[in-house]
């Protein structure tokens, strides 16, 4: 399986998991991001993900490869949904298999953290009050600033 992929169809964790099976591996750790019914105190009804796929595929594959090398795990993969999702839907899946669990936990955590900050995917939330909006990464929003075009020439 590819190290990183986008999917417009519902993710199938059972078959994703099987793709990382290996008799050398004693540990498998997976992370799933589910669509929550609330965010930042607002009631969420549904959401959609939009990705810049050409770049996202490359960056996602780099992240998975970094995790494999850094933590010495045998297999790792990540798939991210795009399109319209309902409450409870699986938005992102990360799986890692490894001889031992220390490395599997660390690699899985690394991949989801990096994917959330580096892969160009955007989330539009639809709220119970009819409003909707694109969600910015919290860490970035806290020091929001004008895009660089305004700041300086060369």
């Amino acid at each position, binding site marked *: 399986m590819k190290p990183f992929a986008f999917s417009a169809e519902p993710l199938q964790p059972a078959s994703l998991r099987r793709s990382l099976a290996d008799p050398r591996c004693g540990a498998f750790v997976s992370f799933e991001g589910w669509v929550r019914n609330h965010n930042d105190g607002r009631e969420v009804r549904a959401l959609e993900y939009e990705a810049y796929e050409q770049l996202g595929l490359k960056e996602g594959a780099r992240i998975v490869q970094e995790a494999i090398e850094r933590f010495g795990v045998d297999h790792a993969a990540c798939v*991210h949904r795009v399109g319209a999702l309902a409450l409870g839907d699986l938005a992102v899946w990360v799986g890692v298999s490894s001889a031992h669990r220390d490395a599997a936990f660390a690699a899985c955590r690394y991949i989801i953290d990096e994917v959330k900050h580096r892969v160009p995917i955007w989330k539009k939330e639809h709220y119970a009050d009819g409003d909707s909006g694109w969600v910015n990464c919290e860490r970035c929003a806290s020091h929001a600033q004008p895009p660089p075009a305004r700041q300086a020439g060369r």
Partner: protein
Amino acid sequence: MREIQVEYFAALREHAGCGRERLRTAARTPRELFAELSRRHGFPELGPLKVAVNDEFGDWEAPLADGDSVVFIPPVAGG
């Protein structure tokens, strides 16, 4: 003048009113190109943007070449 293709995603796509556009521009760098497009489309403040040139992360100050494809990347919120 260079011919550049720009692709928009998420909030920028909605503000631009289109997913992509092809334009002839005097902008020499992504920074100058963004300033030009920002004036035209009235982009909102979205926090620190990144830029991609030809589907790789790029430099705001690197010279653009004729035929380049450019994407401005708002802060991401994956997962």
